[in-house]
C-alpha cells in the first residue's frame, strides 16, 4: 500500500483498526510465560480467527502480532536469532489468511524494553538497527504498512520511525501511550510528540493504551489544531481494575462505541481498541463511527519546533520568540577553554540562565578551532535534551555536524542556517528536510550579502522554491533579515527593515535577526538595539537571536506583545510585572511606618531576612545602640520568638533555621564590637557532635551543630562514620561535658551504646550524652544509658542549655 493510497483512504472515512490481541490469544489457549509471537507463529489458526473476527467487525487495518518481535524482546526468550523468521512468517501468514482483500495488515513495532540515548544506554543507531531488522522482515512478509505503538519514549519512537523510513516507502502510524495527565512515563507531552513525529514523516499520529476513550478525546482535541497528518486513538476498554488477581476492563462494547462520536468530533481519523477490547467492541465502534464524518487535518504545515518535553509555536499570532544566543564559543574565552577541555558545565549553565531569562529556543553552536565540532555538538545535544525543556536550534556551517545533531536530537529542531550558497542549498537543505527540521533562511549567496532589499527578496524566493521541492511550506521557515551594522553603512538597518516588512506582510513567513549586529562599533549600543527592535517589531519581526539576560530587550518584547495582541489577555505581561507594584508598596509601607532600629533587627531574625540584617544592625548602631543592646534587646528575644513559633508549630524547620542563620550573621557583624568591649566570646560550653560509626547520614547532625553554634555553644563536629574511640578521644582533648550522637539507621544506632560504654570504661562519668536521629527515641536513650533524647534541633539546644546550666 502506498502512502498516497493510505492518505486517500483516510480522507474518505474514519479508518477502523483492530482491538486487543494478547487477551484473545489467552482466550484461545496461549499459556502464561511463553513468547506470544512464537505462540502466534505456532498457532496460525488462532491468529486467523482473531484477525478475521476483527475484519468482520469492520477493521480496515489489523496489526500483525509482532509487538514483541524485535531482537531485544525476543532475546528474553532466547529467540533473538529467529527475529527475521518470526516477523516474516507472521506477516506472510496474516496476509495469506485474511478473508477480505480490503483488510490491510500492518507490521507492529513496539518498545524494546530498553532506554535509548540520550535517556538510556541503548545507542540510538543500535535502536534504529534493531527496528530495521524487524521492518525488513515484515516488508519481505508483505505487510501493507506499519504501526509503531505503545511508545513511552519519543526517542525510541523516532528510532522506529527512521527505521521504517530508511527501509521502505510504506505508510507508518505512530502512537504513544500517555497517562491521564497526558504525559508518557518519560515525560513527553502529546503536542511535542506530534510536532516531532509528523515532521519526521509519520503518516498518522496518536495514542493507544494506558487510558480509556474519555481521556483520549481531550488529548486529540488539544493537538488537532497543530496536526498536519491524521490523528489516531486506540483506547483501552476503560481503566483497568485488578479484581481477584485479574485485570478487568469493564467497559461494555456499547459504552465503548459511545465514545466514537466524541473521538471523531475531536479530530480522530483512525480509531480502534487496545487492552480489554474485543471484536464486539470494534464492531460497535465501527457502526457508530460510520455515522460521523471525520475532521481532516486543519493545516498543511505548522511553525513549531519541539524538544522531548516542550514545544515552541511560532507565527504572528504567537508571542515574540527569543532564540538564546549564548551557547556559542565565538568571543567567549572561558567557554572556549571549557569546550577545549571537553567540559559542558558552562553550556549547561548558559542553558539554565537563558531558559529562566525567557528564551524560547536555545541556539547551539560548537564551532571552535581545536575541538571536534561534531563530537561536541552531539554531547551538547544529548545533555541539553535532558537538562532543558527548550527546543534547540542547531547552528553550524558544516552539513555533517547538522546531520549528526538532527539524527540524535529527540525533537524537531531549527537549523541555523540555509542560504543560497552552494554547499548549504545542496547539502544542508536535503538533510534538514529528511529530519523535518525548520530552518533559518539566510538571504545570501556565494557572492555575498545582497545590498538592497529587492535583491535579498529574490534570494529568499529562490531558496524557498528549492525548499518547496522537499515539501517545505512557508510556516516551516524563518527568514533572517541579515542585520548589518549601521556604523559602516547607515542604510543597513533600513534594508533589513524592508525585508522584514515584505516577509511579514507579503510573503507570510516568520522573521528573525541577530539583533545586536545593528549597533556593532557604536557607543552605548543598547539604545541603538532598543530603537531598532522597536522599529523591527513594527514591521512584523517575530523572532530574534539575542541574549535573554538583557532586561531592556526582554521587557520591550513583553510590552510589544501586549501592544500587538500576541500576548493574549496580557497574561504574560501581568504575570511578569503584576507583582512589582505590590512589592514596591510593601517596601515603601515599611519605611513609612518608621520602625525603630532595634525592632527592624528583631524582625530580620524572625523573618529570617539574612540579606537585610547587616544594614539593620548598622542602622541601629548609627542610632546609638550598643552591640550588647542589640544582642540583648533584639537578637536574643528574636531567636527566642522563633523558637516559640517553632514549638507551637507556626514555624517549621526551614523557618527555624532561617532565623538561626540570620541570628548567626547578626552575631558575626556584632562580634568585633562584643569581643573588644564586653569580651563575651569566652566561657562557651563545648559540645562534641558525631554521626556514629557505619553511618554516613549527617544532615540532622549538621543542623543541630548550626543551631548549637547560634545559641553560643562551642561545637566540635567530628563528622560522620566516627568510631567510639575517636569520639572519646575528642571528649578528652576538648574537656567536653556534652556529647551529641546521631544515627539514621537501625543497623547503626547500636553504635551509640558503644560510645557511652567506652566513656564509662574510661571514667568519664561527668560527660552527658544526648542522642538523636530518625530511628531513635526516648526508650532507646534510656536503654543505652544516654542522658537525653532530642527530638529535633531546637530540642537539642534546650537540652544542651539544661546540661550546661
Amino acid at each position, binding site marked *: 500500500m502506498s502512502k498516497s493510497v493510505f492518505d486517500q483512504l483516510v480522507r474518505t472515512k474514519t479508518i477502523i483498526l483492530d482491538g486487543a490481541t494478547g487477551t484473545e490469544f489467552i482466550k484461545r489457549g496461549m499459556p502464561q510465560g511463553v513468547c506470544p509471537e512464537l505462540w502466534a507463529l505456532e498457532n496460525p489458526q488462532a491468529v486467523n480467527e482473531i484477525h478475521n473476527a476483527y475484519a468482520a467487525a469492520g477493521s480496515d487495518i489489523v496489526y500483525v502480532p509482532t509487538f514483541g518481535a524485535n531482537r531485544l524482546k525476543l532475546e528474553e526468550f532466547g529467540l533473538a536469532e529467529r527475529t527475521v523468521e518470526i516477523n516474516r512468517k507472521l506477516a506472510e501468514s496474516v496476509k495469506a489468511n485474511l478473508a477480505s482483500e480490503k483488510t490491510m495488515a500492518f507490521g507492529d513495532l513496539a518498545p524494546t524494553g530498553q532506554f535509548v540515548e*540520550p535517556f538510556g544506554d541503548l545507542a540510538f543507531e543500535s535502536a534504529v538497527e534493531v527496528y530495521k531488522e524487524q521492518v525488513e522482515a515484515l516488508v519481505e512478509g508483505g505487510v501493507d504498512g506499519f504501526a509503531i505503538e505503545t511508545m513511552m519514549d519519543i526517542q525510541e519512537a523516532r528510532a522506529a520511525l527512521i527505521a521504517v523510513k530508511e527501509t521502505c516507502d510504506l505508510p507508518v502510524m505512530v502512537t504513544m501511550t500517555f497517562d491521564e495527565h497526558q504525559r508518557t512515563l518519560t515525560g513527553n507531552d502529546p503536542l511535542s510528540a506530534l510536532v516531532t513525529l509528523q515532521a519526521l514523516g509519520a503518516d498518522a499520529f496518536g495514542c493507544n493504551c494506558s487510558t480509556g476513550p474519555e481521556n483520549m478525546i481531550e488529548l486529540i482535541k488539544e493537538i488537532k489544531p497543530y496536526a498536519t497528518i491524521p490523528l489516531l486513538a486506540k483506547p483501552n476498554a476503560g481503566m483497568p481494575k485488578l479484581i481477584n488477581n485479574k485485570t478487568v476492563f469493564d467497559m461494555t462494547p456499547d459504552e465503548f462505541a459511545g465514545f466514537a462520536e466524541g473521538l471523531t468530533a475531536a479530530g480522530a481519523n483512525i480509531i480502534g481498541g487496545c487492552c480489554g477490547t474485543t471484536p464486539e467492541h470494534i464492531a460497535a465502534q465501527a457502526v457508530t463511527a460510520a455515522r460521523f464524518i471525520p475532521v481532516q487535518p486543519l493545516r498543511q504545515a505548522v511553525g513549531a519546533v519541539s524538544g522531548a518535553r516542550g514545544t515552541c509555536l511560532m507565527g504572528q499570532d504567537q508571542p515574540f520568540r527569543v532564540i538564546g544566543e549564548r551557547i556559542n564559543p565565538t568571543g567567549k574565552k572561558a567557554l572556549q577553554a571549557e569546550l577545549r577541555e571537553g567540559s559542558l558545565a558552562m553550556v549547561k549553565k548558559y542553558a539554565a540562565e537563558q531558559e529562566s531569562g525567557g528564551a524560547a529556543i536555545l541556539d547551539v553552536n560548537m564551532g571552535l578551532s581545536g575541538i571536534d565540532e561534531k563530537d561536541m555538538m552531539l554531547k551538547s545535544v544529548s545533555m541539553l535534551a535532558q537538562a532543558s525543556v527548550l527546543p534547540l536550534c542547531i547552528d553550524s556551517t558544516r552539513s555533517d555536524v547538522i546531520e549528526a545533531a538532527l539524527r540524535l536530537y529527540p525533537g524537531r529542531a531549527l537549523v541555523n542556517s540555509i542560504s543560497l550558497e552552494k554547499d548549504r542549498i545542496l547539502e544542508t537543505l536535503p538533510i534538514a528536510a529528511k529530519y523535518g527540521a525548520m530552518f533559518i533562511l539566510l538571504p545570501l549567496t556565494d557572492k555575498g550579502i545582497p545590498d538592497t532589499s529587492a535583491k535579498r527578496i529574490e534570494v529568499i524566493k529562490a531558496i524557498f522554491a528549492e525548499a518547496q521541492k522537499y515539501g517545505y511550506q512557508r510556516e516551516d521557515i524563518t527568514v533572517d533579515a541579515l542585520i548589518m551594522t549601521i556604523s559602516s553603512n547607515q542604510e543597513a538597518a533600513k534594508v533589513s527593515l524592508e525585508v522584514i516588512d515584505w516577509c511579514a506582510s507579503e510573503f507570510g513567513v516568520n522573521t528573525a535577526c541577530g539583533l545586536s549586529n545593528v549597533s556593532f562599533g557604536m557607543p552605548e549600543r543598547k539604545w541603538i538595539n532598543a530603537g531598532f527592535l522597536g522599529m523591527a517589531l513594527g514591521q512584523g519581526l517575530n523572532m530574534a537571536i539575542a541574549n535573554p539576560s538583557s532586561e531592556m530587550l526582554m521587557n520591550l518584547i513583553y510590552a510589544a506583545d501586549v501592544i500587538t495582541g500576541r500576548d493574549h489577555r496580557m497574561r504574560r505581561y501581568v504575570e511578569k510585572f503584576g507583582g512589582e507594584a505590590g512589592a514596591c508598596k510593601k517596601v515603601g509601607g515599611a519605611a513609612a511606618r518608621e520602625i525603630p532600629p532595634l525592632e527592624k533587627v528583631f524582625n530580620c531574625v524572625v523573618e529570617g531576612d539574612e540579606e537585610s540584617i547587616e544594614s539593620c544592625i548598622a542602622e541601629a548602631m548609627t542610632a546609638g545602640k550598643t552591640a550588647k543592646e542589640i544582642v540583648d534587646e533584639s537578637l536574643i528575644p528574636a531567636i527566642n520568638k522563633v523558637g516559640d513559633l517553632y514549638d507551637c508549630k507556626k514555624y*517549621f524547620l526551614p523557618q527555624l533555621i532561617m532565623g538561626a542563620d540570620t541570628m548567626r550573621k547578626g552575631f558575626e557583624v556584632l562580634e568585633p564590637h562584643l569581643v573588644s568591649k564586653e569580651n563575651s566570646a569566652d566561657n562557651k560550653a563545648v559540645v562534641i557532635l558525631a554521626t556514629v560509626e557505619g553511618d554516613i547520614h549527617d544532615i540532622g547532625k549538621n543542623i543541630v551543630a548550626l543551631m548549637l553554634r547560634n545559641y553560643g555553644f562551642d561545637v566540635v563536629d567530628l563528622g560522620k562514620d566516627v568510631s567510639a574511640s575517636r569520639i572519646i578521644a575528642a571528649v578528652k582533648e576538648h574537656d567536653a561535658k556534652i556529647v551529641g550522637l546521631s544515627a539514621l539507621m537501625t*543497623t547503626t544506632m547500636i553504635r551509640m551504646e558503644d560510645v557511652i560504654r567506652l566513656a564509662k570504661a574510661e571514667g568519664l562519668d561527668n560527660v552527658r550524652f544526648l542522642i538523636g536521629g530518625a530511628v531513635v527515641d526516648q526508650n532507646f536513650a534510656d536503654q543505652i544509658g544516654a542522658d537525653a533524647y532530642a527530638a529535633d534541633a531546637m530540642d537539642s539546644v534546650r537540652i544542651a542549655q539544661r546540661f550546661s546550666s
Partner: protein
Amino acid sequence: MNKEDTQKYKPIFVNSIPLPLPEKKIYSRLGHNRHLNEISAGQQRKIANAMIAASACCKLKGVWLKLAITEFGENSFTLENGTVFQSEKLLRLVRDCSGLAIFGATAGHEIVERTAEFAASGDGVSALVYDAVGSETADAAMGWLQNYLNQIFKRSNEHLTRLRFSAGYGDFGLENQKEIYRLLDLGRLGVELTPHFLMVPEKTVTAVAGVIKVN
C-alpha cells in the same frame, strides 16, 4: 555472580529519569504542616528558590533487572542466577510471585556535595532544603521506576507487588545491599558501597518488588 552472569542478567539503565519536583513531599519532609504553619511570602520564596536550585543539582538515574524466582525455601528464595535472599517478610511478599524486580535510583553526587558545602558554610536552610530535595527526588525516582516497570510488565500480564522492600528493612538484612549492588552494576551509575553496606552518594535507593503473573 561471575562475569558471565553479569552479561546474561544484564540490568537496564535509565540515564535520565524525568520527574517534576515533588514539592509537597519535600515540604512534608521538612516538617511543613499547611494547617498550622504560617509562612511569609519572603520565606516561601527563599525556600522555593532553594528547591529549584537543588532540583537542578539532582541527576536522576536508574537501573532495573528482572529475575525469575526458581525456588522457595522456608525463609528464603532463590533467583534464576543462583542468588538467594533470606528474609521471612520478603518471602511473604513474593510467595505468589514468579519473579523479582530489582531496581535502584540515584540523585547523583552533586546534590550531596552541595548539601555538605552549605552545611560547612553555615547556610543551614540551603543544606536542609537540598538534603530534602535529594531524598525526595531519589524516592520519587523509585516510584517512577516502579510505575514504569508496571507498564512494561503489563504486556506480559504481569505487575509488581504494591509494596517494595529495601535492604535493611525488617529482617531483609542490610548486607543484601552487596548482592543488589552487584546485580544492578551500580558502579556504572557512579555509586559506591561502603564496608557497612551504605551507598555513596547517600541519595541512592534500591529496592526489590515481586513480579506477579496475572491470570
